[in-house]
Protein backbone atom coordinates (compact mmCIF):
# COMPACT_ATOMS: atom_id res chain seq x y z
CA UNK A 1 0.00 0.00 0.00
CA UNK A 2 2.69 2.49 0.99
CA UNK A 3 4.59 1.44 -2.13
CA UNK A 4 1.66 2.28 -4.38
CA UNK A 5 1.13 5.65 -2.69
CA UNK A 6 4.80 6.57 -3.12
CA UNK A 7 4.90 5.53 -6.78
CA UNK A 8 1.66 7.38 -7.50
CA UNK A 9 3.20 10.43 -5.85
CA UNK A 10 6.30 10.18 -8.06
CA UNK A 11 4.30 9.83 -11.27
CA UNK A 12 1.87 12.58 -10.27
CA UNK A 13 4.73 14.99 -9.60
CA UNK A 14 6.39 14.12 -12.93
CA UNK A 15 3.15 14.74 -14.83
CA UNK A 16 2.55 17.96 -12.89
CA UNK A 17 6.04 19.20 -13.79
CA UNK A 18 5.41 18.44 -17.47
CA UNK A 19 2.09 20.30 -17.44
CA UNK A 20 3.56 23.28 -15.59
CA UNK A 21 6.50 23.54 -17.98
CA UNK A 22 4.21 23.43 -21.03
CA UNK A 23 2.05 26.14 -19.49
CA UNK A 24 5.12 28.20 -18.60
CA UNK A 25 6.65 27.87 -22.05
CA UNK A 26 3.48 29.11 -23.66
CA UNK A 27 2.50 31.83 -21.25
CA UNK A 28 5.66 33.41 -19.82
CA UNK A 29 6.73 36.32 -22.03
CA UNK A 30 10.47 36.17 -21.37
CA UNK A 31 12.54 34.00 -23.70
CA UNK A 32 15.08 33.03 -21.04
CA UNK A 33 12.26 31.67 -18.90
CA UNK A 34 10.94 29.78 -21.89
CA UNK A 35 14.36 28.19 -22.35
CA UNK A 36 14.54 27.24 -18.66
CA UNK A 37 11.10 25.66 -18.97
CA UNK A 38 12.18 23.77 -22.09
CA UNK A 39 15.24 22.32 -20.37
CA UNK A 40 13.17 21.28 -17.33
CA UNK A 41 10.63 19.69 -19.69
CA UNK A 42 13.25 17.64 -21.54
CA UNK A 43 14.86 16.52 -18.29
CA UNK A 44 11.50 15.49 -16.87
CA UNK A 45 10.70 13.53 -20.01
CA UNK A 46 14.04 11.73 -19.61
CA UNK A 47 13.22 11.01 -15.95
CA UNK A 48 9.87 9.58 -16.98
CA UNK A 49 11.50 7.34 -19.58
CA UNK A 50 13.95 6.00 -17.01
CA UNK A 51 11.13 5.42 -14.51
CA UNK A 52 9.35 3.18 -17.05
CA UNK A 53 12.37 0.86 -17.02
CA UNK A 54 12.36 0.34 -13.24
CA UNK A 55 10.95 -2.87 -11.80
CA UNK A 56 10.10 -3.57 -8.18
CA UNK A 57 12.58 -5.89 -6.57
CA UNK A 58 16.34 -5.89 -6.27
CA UNK A 59 17.55 -3.19 -8.64
CA UNK A 60 21.00 -3.33 -10.21
CA UNK A 61 22.46 -1.25 -13.04
CA UNK A 62 22.40 -2.92 -16.48
CA UNK A 63 26.14 -3.65 -16.40
CA UNK A 64 27.37 -7.18 -15.85
CA UNK A 65 29.38 -6.96 -12.60
CA UNK A 66 33.05 -7.74 -12.18
CA UNK A 67 34.27 -7.33 -15.77
CA UNK A 68 37.35 -5.21 -16.45
CA UNK A 69 39.94 -4.81 -19.22
CA UNK A 70 42.03 -7.74 -17.99
CA UNK A 71 39.48 -9.80 -16.05
CA UNK A 72 36.82 -11.11 -18.44
CA UNK A 73 35.88 -14.70 -17.65
CA UNK A 74 33.31 -16.66 -19.57
CA UNK A 75 29.86 -16.19 -18.07
CA UNK A 76 27.51 -19.09 -17.49
CA UNK A 77 23.78 -19.24 -18.04
CA UNK A 78 22.93 -19.19 -14.33
CA UNK A 79 24.76 -15.90 -13.77
CA UNK A 80 23.04 -14.39 -16.81
CA UNK A 81 19.66 -15.49 -15.46
CA UNK A 82 20.32 -13.72 -12.16
CA UNK A 83 21.65 -10.67 -13.99
CA UNK A 84 18.68 -10.38 -16.34
CA UNK A 85 16.34 -10.78 -13.38
CA UNK A 86 17.94 -8.05 -11.26
CA UNK A 87 19.14 -5.42 -13.74
CA UNK A 88 16.83 -2.61 -14.81
CA UNK A 89 15.53 -2.16 -18.35
CA UNK A 90 18.44 -0.76 -20.43
CA UNK A 91 16.39 0.43 -23.42
CA UNK A 92 14.94 3.64 -21.88
CA UNK A 93 18.42 4.52 -20.62
CA UNK A 94 19.79 4.19 -24.16
CA UNK A 95 17.13 6.56 -25.43
CA UNK A 96 17.89 9.02 -22.64
CA UNK A 97 21.68 9.04 -23.20
CA UNK A 98 21.39 10.56 -26.66
CA UNK A 99 18.36 12.69 -25.78
CA UNK A 100 20.34 14.53 -23.11
CA UNK A 101 23.23 15.51 -25.39
CA UNK A 102 20.96 16.41 -28.31
CA UNK A 103 18.78 18.41 -25.93
CA UNK A 104 21.87 20.29 -24.79
CA UNK A 105 22.85 21.05 -28.40
CA UNK A 106 19.36 22.26 -29.27
CA UNK A 107 19.32 24.39 -26.13
CA UNK A 108 22.64 25.95 -27.21
CA UNK A 109 21.19 26.67 -30.65
CA UNK A 110 18.16 28.35 -29.09
CA UNK A 111 20.42 30.39 -26.80
CA UNK A 112 22.28 31.71 -29.84
CA UNK A 113 18.97 32.74 -31.37
CA UNK A 114 18.08 34.46 -28.10
CA UNK A 115 21.41 36.33 -28.16
CA UNK A 116 20.75 37.52 -31.71
CA UNK A 117 17.23 38.60 -30.75
CA UNK A 118 18.68 40.62 -27.90
CA UNK A 119 21.20 42.17 -30.29
CA UNK A 120 18.44 43.19 -32.67
CA UNK A 121 15.66 44.35 -30.36
CA UNK A 122 17.43 45.10 -27.08
CA UNK A 123 15.07 42.92 -25.08
CA UNK A 124 14.02 39.29 -24.67
CA UNK A 125 10.40 40.05 -23.77
CA UNK A 126 8.29 38.73 -26.63
CA UNK A 127 5.60 41.38 -26.11
CA UNK A 128 8.17 44.16 -26.45
CA UNK A 129 9.75 42.39 -29.44
CA UNK A 130 6.36 42.25 -31.13
CA UNK A 131 5.75 45.95 -30.49
CA UNK A 132 9.18 46.93 -31.74
CA UNK A 133 8.77 44.83 -34.87
CA UNK A 134 5.53 46.65 -35.66
CA UNK A 135 7.19 49.98 -34.93
CA UNK A 136 10.14 49.16 -37.19
CA UNK A 137 8.00 47.92 -40.07
CA UNK A 138 5.80 51.04 -40.12
Amino acid sequence: MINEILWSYIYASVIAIIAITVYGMASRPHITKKLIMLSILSDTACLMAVLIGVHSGTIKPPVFPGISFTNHPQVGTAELDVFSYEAVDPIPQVLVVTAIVIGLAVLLFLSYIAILLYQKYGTLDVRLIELRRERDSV
Partner: protein
Amino acid sequence: MNESKGMKNKDTTKEIIVAIFASLLIIVFASAILFSGAIAIPPQPTNRPLASFYLRTTYNWEFKWLWSSSPEVVTSILWDHRGIDTVYETSVFFFAIIGALMLIRSYKGGSKYKAVGMSVIARSITKITLVSIPVIALSIAIHGHLTPGGGFQGGSVFAISTLLAIIALGLGFFMERRWTKHRLLGLRTLGLMIIGFIAISLPIIGFFRGYSGYIMQNQWKPWSPLGFGYVFNLFGIEILYSGSLLFLNLAEFLAVSAGLTLAFIALALPKEDIRKGGGLDD
Protein backbone atom coordinates in the same frame (compact mmCIF):
# COMPACT_ATOMS: atom_id res chain seq x y z
CA MET B 1 6.48 55.35 -24.50
CA ASN B 2 3.55 53.51 -25.92
CA GLU B 3 5.37 50.22 -25.35
CA SER B 4 4.31 49.93 -21.73
CA LYS B 5 0.73 50.69 -22.71
CA GLY B 6 0.72 47.83 -25.16
CA MET B 7 2.10 45.45 -22.55
CA LYS B 8 -0.72 46.01 -20.11
CA ASN B 9 -3.34 44.42 -22.34
CA LYS B 10 -3.04 40.83 -21.17
CA ASP B 11 -4.42 38.34 -23.60
CA THR B 12 -6.69 36.37 -21.31
CA THR B 13 -8.07 34.17 -24.09
CA LYS B 14 -4.62 32.87 -24.89
CA GLU B 15 -3.93 32.18 -21.22
CA ILE B 16 -7.12 30.17 -20.92
CA ILE B 17 -6.34 28.15 -24.05
CA VAL B 18 -2.86 27.38 -22.75
CA ALA B 19 -4.23 26.34 -19.36
CA ILE B 20 -6.77 24.05 -21.01
CA PHE B 21 -4.03 22.50 -23.12
CA ALA B 22 -1.82 21.91 -20.08
CA SER B 23 -4.65 20.26 -18.15
CA LEU B 24 -5.47 18.12 -21.20
CA LEU B 25 -1.86 17.00 -21.12
CA ILE B 26 -2.27 15.95 -17.49
CA ILE B 27 -5.38 13.94 -18.37
CA VAL B 28 -3.68 12.22 -21.33
CA PHE B 29 -0.60 11.22 -19.33
CA ALA B 30 -2.61 10.13 -16.31
CA SER B 31 -4.91 7.98 -18.43
CA ALA B 32 -1.85 6.50 -20.17
CA ILE B 33 -0.54 5.49 -16.78
CA LEU B 34 -3.80 4.33 -15.21
CA PHE B 35 -5.70 2.64 -18.05
CA SER B 36 -3.45 1.67 -20.93
CA GLY B 37 -1.02 -0.33 -18.81
CA ALA B 38 2.06 1.34 -20.27
CA ILE B 39 3.25 2.07 -16.75
CA ALA B 40 2.29 -0.07 -13.78
CA ILE B 41 1.88 1.28 -10.24
CA PRO B 42 3.79 -0.13 -8.43
CA PRO B 43 6.22 -1.19 -11.21
CA GLN B 44 6.06 -4.64 -12.71
CA PRO B 45 7.82 -7.28 -10.57
CA THR B 46 10.26 -8.42 -13.27
CA ASN B 47 11.75 -7.11 -16.47
CA ARG B 48 9.86 -7.00 -19.73
CA PRO B 49 10.74 -9.79 -22.23
CA LEU B 50 12.58 -7.41 -24.56
CA ALA B 51 14.76 -6.08 -21.74
CA SER B 52 15.50 -9.63 -20.61
CA PHE B 53 16.51 -10.53 -24.15
CA TYR B 54 19.06 -7.71 -24.35
CA LEU B 55 20.37 -8.33 -20.83
CA ARG B 56 20.76 -12.04 -21.59
CA THR B 57 22.43 -11.83 -24.99
CA THR B 58 24.88 -8.92 -24.92
CA TYR B 59 27.49 -10.78 -22.86
CA ASN B 60 26.45 -14.37 -23.58
CA TRP B 61 29.54 -16.40 -24.51
CA GLU B 62 27.40 -19.31 -25.68
CA PHE B 63 25.50 -17.36 -28.34
CA LYS B 64 28.32 -15.42 -29.92
CA TRP B 65 26.26 -14.71 -33.02
CA LEU B 66 23.96 -12.53 -30.93
CA TRP B 67 26.37 -10.90 -28.51
CA SER B 68 28.26 -7.64 -28.67
CA SER B 69 31.07 -8.80 -26.34
CA SER B 70 30.51 -6.01 -23.82
CA PRO B 71 29.15 -6.33 -20.28
CA GLU B 72 27.69 -2.82 -20.57
CA VAL B 73 24.24 -3.36 -22.06
CA VAL B 74 23.49 0.36 -22.58
CA THR B 75 26.63 0.95 -24.66
CA SER B 76 26.01 -2.30 -26.55
CA ILE B 77 22.53 -1.23 -27.59
CA LEU B 78 23.73 2.31 -28.29
CA TRP B 79 26.60 1.44 -30.62
CA ASP B 80 25.81 -2.09 -31.79
CA HIS B 81 22.15 -3.01 -31.86
CA ARG B 82 20.88 0.41 -32.87
CA GLY B 83 24.15 1.89 -34.05
CA ILE B 84 22.86 3.63 -37.19
CA ASP B 85 20.38 5.54 -35.07
CA THR B 86 23.20 6.79 -32.86
CA VAL B 87 25.22 7.84 -35.92
CA TYR B 88 22.30 9.94 -37.11
CA GLU B 89 21.84 11.42 -33.65
CA THR B 90 25.51 12.35 -33.64
CA SER B 91 25.00 14.13 -36.95
CA VAL B 92 21.98 15.95 -35.49
CA PHE B 93 24.28 17.18 -32.74
CA PHE B 94 26.87 18.16 -35.36
CA PHE B 95 24.39 20.18 -37.39
CA ALA B 96 23.00 21.88 -34.29
CA ILE B 97 26.53 23.13 -33.53
CA ILE B 98 27.03 24.13 -37.18
CA GLY B 99 23.74 26.01 -37.20
CA ALA B 100 24.61 27.79 -33.99
CA LEU B 101 27.97 28.85 -35.41
CA MET B 102 26.32 30.09 -38.58
CA LEU B 103 24.31 32.49 -36.43
CA ILE B 104 27.51 33.83 -34.86
CA ARG B 105 29.85 34.07 -37.81
CA SER B 106 32.30 36.57 -36.42
CA TYR B 107 34.23 34.26 -34.08
CA LYS B 108 37.74 35.29 -35.08
CA GLY B 109 39.96 33.75 -32.42
CA GLY B 110 43.40 35.33 -32.20
CA SER B 111 45.05 36.70 -29.10
CA LYS B 112 43.22 39.98 -28.73
CA TYR B 113 41.37 38.72 -25.64
CA LYS B 114 43.39 38.86 -22.46
CA ALA B 115 43.22 36.15 -19.84
CA VAL B 116 41.51 38.24 -17.19
CA GLY B 117 39.49 36.07 -14.92
CA MET B 118 38.38 35.95 -11.34
CA SER B 119 40.54 36.13 -8.19
CA VAL B 120 43.78 34.20 -7.65
CA ILE B 121 42.06 31.57 -5.52
CA ALA B 122 39.41 30.84 -8.14
CA ARG B 123 41.99 30.77 -10.93
CA SER B 124 44.33 28.39 -9.08
CA ILE B 125 41.55 25.97 -8.21
CA THR B 126 40.18 26.09 -11.75
CA LYS B 127 43.62 25.26 -13.13
CA ILE B 128 43.68 22.16 -10.89
CA THR B 129 40.25 21.08 -12.09
CA LEU B 130 41.29 21.80 -15.68
CA VAL B 131 43.66 18.85 -15.33
CA SER B 132 41.52 16.51 -13.25
CA ILE B 133 38.16 16.82 -14.99
CA PRO B 134 39.48 15.91 -18.48
CA VAL B 135 41.29 12.91 -16.97
CA ILE B 136 38.02 11.70 -15.47
CA ALA B 137 36.23 12.42 -18.75
CA LEU B 138 38.75 10.39 -20.74
CA SER B 139 38.47 7.57 -18.20
CA ILE B 140 34.69 7.56 -18.59
CA ALA B 141 35.08 7.38 -22.37
CA ILE B 142 37.75 4.65 -22.36
CA HIS B 143 35.82 2.48 -19.89
CA GLY B 144 32.60 3.09 -21.83
CA HIS B 145 32.21 -0.58 -22.74
CA LEU B 146 32.94 -1.81 -19.19
CA THR B 147 31.32 0.63 -16.77
CA PRO B 148 28.38 3.05 -17.00
CA GLY B 149 29.34 5.94 -19.26
CA GLY B 150 30.69 6.34 -22.74
CA GLY B 151 31.57 8.89 -25.36
CA PHE B 152 28.57 11.14 -24.89
CA GLN B 153 28.99 11.29 -21.13
CA GLY B 154 32.76 11.73 -21.25
CA GLY B 155 32.48 14.54 -23.78
CA SER B 156 29.87 16.32 -21.70
CA VAL B 157 32.07 16.04 -18.60
CA PHE B 158 35.01 17.44 -20.57
CA ALA B 159 32.94 20.40 -21.72
CA ILE B 160 32.20 21.23 -18.06
CA SER B 161 35.91 21.86 -17.45
CA THR B 162 36.13 24.30 -20.37
CA LEU B 163 32.98 26.05 -19.21
CA LEU B 164 34.52 26.49 -15.76
CA ALA B 165 37.73 27.77 -17.35
CA ILE B 166 35.87 30.31 -19.49
CA ILE B 167 34.18 31.71 -16.39
CA ALA B 168 37.14 31.65 -14.00
CA LEU B 169 40.10 32.25 -16.31
CA GLY B 170 38.52 34.36 -19.01
CA LEU B 171 38.12 33.81 -22.73
CA GLY B 172 41.74 34.83 -23.38
CA PHE B 173 42.96 31.65 -21.72
CA PHE B 174 41.78 29.69 -24.75
CA MET B 175 42.69 32.35 -27.29
CA GLU B 176 46.29 32.46 -26.07
CA ARG B 177 46.49 28.72 -26.57
CA ARG B 178 45.05 29.06 -30.08
CA TRP B 179 41.89 27.07 -29.52
CA THR B 180 40.47 28.56 -32.68
CA LYS B 181 37.20 27.75 -34.35
CA HIS B 182 38.89 25.90 -37.18
CA ARG B 183 40.90 23.61 -34.92
CA LEU B 184 37.94 22.71 -32.70
CA LEU B 185 35.67 22.25 -35.70
CA GLY B 186 38.37 20.10 -37.28
CA LEU B 187 38.52 17.87 -34.20
CA ARG B 188 34.74 17.72 -34.20
CA THR B 189 34.68 16.67 -37.84
CA LEU B 190 37.51 14.21 -37.28
CA GLY B 191 35.45 12.43 -34.61
CA LEU B 192 32.45 12.21 -36.89
CA MET B 193 34.61 10.98 -39.76
CA ILE B 194 36.09 8.22 -37.60
CA ILE B 195 32.57 7.13 -36.65
CA GLY B 196 31.52 7.11 -40.30
CA PHE B 197 34.64 5.23 -41.33
CA ILE B 198 34.08 2.53 -38.68
CA ALA B 199 30.45 2.33 -39.76
CA ILE B 200 31.24 1.56 -43.41
CA SER B 201 34.53 -0.31 -42.94
CA LEU B 202 33.08 -3.82 -42.70
CA PRO B 203 30.87 -3.52 -45.84
CA ILE B 204 33.91 -2.28 -47.80
CA ILE B 205 36.17 -5.07 -46.51
CA GLY B 206 33.42 -7.56 -47.20
CA PHE B 207 32.99 -6.23 -50.71
CA PHE B 208 36.63 -6.83 -51.57
CA ARG B 209 36.90 -10.21 -49.84
CA GLY B 210 33.64 -11.64 -51.11
CA TYR B 211 31.72 -11.67 -47.82
CA SER B 212 28.64 -9.74 -46.82
CA GLY B 213 29.18 -7.00 -44.24
CA TYR B 214 26.72 -4.64 -42.67
CA ILE B 215 26.84 -0.97 -41.72
CA MET B 216 27.64 -0.55 -38.00
CA GLN B 217 28.30 -4.27 -37.62
CA ASN B 218 30.37 -5.15 -34.56
CA GLN B 219 30.74 -8.93 -34.17
CA TRP B 220 30.53 -11.74 -36.64
CA LYS B 221 27.21 -13.26 -37.58
CA PRO B 222 26.55 -16.68 -39.15
CA TRP B 223 25.63 -15.02 -42.46
CA SER B 224 28.45 -12.46 -42.24
CA PRO B 225 31.75 -13.77 -40.89
CA LEU B 226 33.44 -10.37 -40.57
CA GLY B 227 33.88 -8.71 -37.19
CA PHE B 228 36.10 -6.47 -35.12
CA GLY B 229 37.06 -9.18 -32.62
CA TYR B 230 36.85 -8.62 -28.88
CA VAL B 231 40.24 -9.29 -27.21
CA PHE B 232 43.80 -8.50 -28.18
CA ASN B 233 46.97 -9.86 -26.70
CA LEU B 234 49.20 -7.23 -25.11
CA PHE B 235 52.43 -8.88 -23.80
CA GLY B 236 50.58 -11.99 -22.73
CA ILE B 237 47.64 -10.19 -21.14
CA GLU B 238 44.33 -10.51 -22.93
CA ILE B 239 42.56 -7.17 -22.98
CA LEU B 240 38.83 -6.92 -23.67
CA TYR B 241 38.06 -4.08 -26.08
CA SER B 242 34.62 -5.19 -27.28
CA GLY B 243 35.08 -4.76 -31.00
CA SER B 244 34.17 -1.38 -32.40
CA LEU B 245 32.65 -0.08 -29.14
CA LEU B 246 35.95 1.26 -27.74
CA PHE B 247 36.85 3.13 -30.95
CA LEU B 248 33.35 4.50 -31.39
CA ASN B 249 33.32 5.70 -27.79
CA LEU B 250 36.67 7.47 -28.22
CA ALA B 251 35.59 9.09 -31.50
CA GLU B 252 32.34 10.21 -29.92
CA PHE B 253 34.26 11.61 -26.94
CA LEU B 254 36.42 13.65 -29.33
CA ALA B 255 33.42 14.87 -31.28
CA VAL B 256 31.22 15.82 -28.32
CA SER B 257 33.99 17.46 -26.28
CA ALA B 258 35.27 19.57 -29.19
CA GLY B 259 31.78 20.53 -30.31
CA LEU B 260 30.54 21.55 -26.88
CA THR B 261 33.79 23.40 -26.12
CA LEU B 262 33.41 25.37 -29.36
CA ALA B 263 29.79 26.12 -28.57
CA PHE B 264 30.62 27.33 -25.06
CA ILE B 265 33.50 29.52 -26.29
CA ALA B 266 31.28 31.07 -28.97
CA LEU B 267 28.55 31.60 -26.40
CA ALA B 268 30.94 33.56 -24.18
CA LEU B 269 32.08 35.98 -26.90
CA PRO B 270 31.72 39.68 -26.17
CA LYS B 271 28.69 41.49 -27.52
CA GLU B 272 30.60 43.72 -29.93
CA ASP B 273 32.17 40.76 -31.71
CA ILE B 274 28.82 39.12 -32.27
CA ARG B 275 27.34 42.34 -33.59
CA LYS B 276 30.06 42.86 -36.16
CA GLY B 277 29.14 39.78 -38.15
CA GLY B 278 31.35 39.12 -41.12
CA GLY B 279 33.04 36.24 -42.80
CA LEU B 280 34.00 32.83 -41.55
CA ASP B 281 37.73 33.53 -41.85
CA ASP B 282 40.03 32.95 -38.96
